[in-house]
């Protein structure tokens, strides 16, 4: 079990709710992932980290699909179930 309570989307300020909801389209899913919500618990961290991460994962010299493979590899090496 999580050692912290993961807030629901409606508990965040409107600016953060908008970003979190946009994540559904980004990931093509019908829910807001826990990580996005956890990161926004400290707003000034979550907002800046969120922008940096979104920039890092966007199509560039490497495609977003290639970047997701890199992310999966990092997660595997770190043995991160999440």
């Amino acid at each position, binding site marked *: 079990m999580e*050692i912290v309570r993961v807030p629901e989307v409606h508990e965040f300020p409107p600016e953060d709710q908008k970003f979190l909801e946009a994540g559904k389209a980004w990931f093509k899913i019908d829910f807001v992932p826990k990580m996005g919500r956890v990161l926004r618990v400290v707003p000034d961290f979550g907002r800046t980290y969120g922008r*940096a991460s979104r920039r890092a994962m966007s199509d560039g*010299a490497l495609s977003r699909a290639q970047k997701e493979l*890199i992310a999966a590899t990092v997660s595997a090496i770190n043995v991160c179930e999440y």
Partner: protein
Amino acid sequence: MAGVTHALNAVADGLRLPPEFSPSSRTPLLAVMEPGEATPEVKAAFDEIMTFYAMDRPPAVFRWMARDPGFFQDYWAATREAFRDRKLDRKMKEVLAFAASLTAKSDYGVDFHYREARRLGVSEQGMTEAIEVAQCFNTVTKIADALQLQPDFDPRPGTR
């Protein structure tokens, strides 16, 4: 590919084998085979490895392995299979091996796979982006583990 990379890095760094392409003061803890000492079968594999990686000497991690020719030949064949072009091309696999090496903090692997990815055509910008992604996911995996976040996705039926 990730498993083979991780294992080769563990052996190379554990035995303190010097990086292949960067200056290093490392001294190997154990002797590696010199190409001149190789049997014909081992030499044939060494030649194949040098062609595969476009190197003028076999990488030290394979020269270590060659002390046991049977193991070496099979492990090299498995490595070649893991890295050859299939649904993912070899260039992308080298980027992934680089990310795996970076994440595992492997001096040997970072040096080796950065060079391989660049040699196979990944641009500096591409490598910069790969490092950014690795950095971001080293951030979130650490946070997820520290907070024991349960996965958002679970492929088992009835668990969502």
